[in-house]
């Protein structure tokens, strides 16, 4: 019954989207952080989605997070000579997170999450109706 596979497909998408949301949360939380534990400024992270076949069928294509990449954009430099981590010219190096991009990412992830939950709910209803067949 292919309807059961819908849960695998949409479930993988929900899990991938929640991981994306997680990355967005960590990016936004670090938007104003100055230096990480390694002394380097925080670099924005992005998830890379990849199609993953669920089961033997070619038609059930789920999603997985293939990797999490670091954004190599130049870090933001702010002039603040009083800051303890300022360099000789008085600049503080901050993370390269772009809050606007992250907000857009967040809305997109949340919409996709909702859509996939809707799909699973519909599949559940259909399966329940199929179980009641003939009664």
């Amino acid at each position: 019954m292919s309807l059961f596979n819908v849960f695998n497909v949409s479930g993988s998408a929900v899990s991938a989207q929640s991981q994306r949301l997680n990355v967005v949360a960590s990016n936004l939380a670090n938007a104003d952080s100055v230096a990480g534990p390694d002394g380097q400024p925080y670099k924005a992270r992005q998830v890379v989605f990849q199609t993953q076949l669920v089961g033997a069928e070619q038609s059930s294509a789920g999603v997985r997070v293939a990797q999490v990449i670091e954004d190599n954009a130049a870090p933001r430099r702010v002039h603040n000579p009083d800051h303890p981590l300022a360099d000789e010219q008085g600049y503080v190096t901050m993370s390269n997170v772009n809050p606007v991009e992250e907000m857009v990412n967040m809305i997109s992830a949340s919409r996709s999450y909702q859509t996939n939950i809707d799909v699973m709910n519909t599949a559940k209803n259909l399966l329940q109706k199929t179980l009641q067949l003939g009664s």
Partner: protein
Amino acid sequence: MLDKLTQSLDFNATALLLRSERTRVLASNIANADTPNFKARDFDFKTALQQATGLTTAAGAPAASALAKTQQGHIAGGHDVGGTHPALLYRTPTQTALDANSVDLDTERAAFADNTVRYEASLRFINTQIRTLMTAINGQDR
């Protein structure tokens, strides 16, 4: 005898199987709405049902792309004709995306809703047929 009793249900049962197959294909499209390079898939329900039920097209020709097997050991091409695994096609994109993804979420959601309603319609057909059979078996004593 018994298979003759349930033969009338076979057509709608096949339709139901194909509908659930399509539900899964559309769910895959929706799941991959944000995946780079993913191409949306779908199949032509009419052709698939004709092939699955062994019916041919109106012109009388065998329904699309069935490869003839003229020798033993020839493998079936593309997809199993007469089975419930229809040939998947690629959807023509309406708007191009920068990440080469061809899923249009609005189209997919509309197709999904349409498919759901038709699945329920098939279910109702089967239910009615079962009720008719039960009436024939039990008589009108209730």
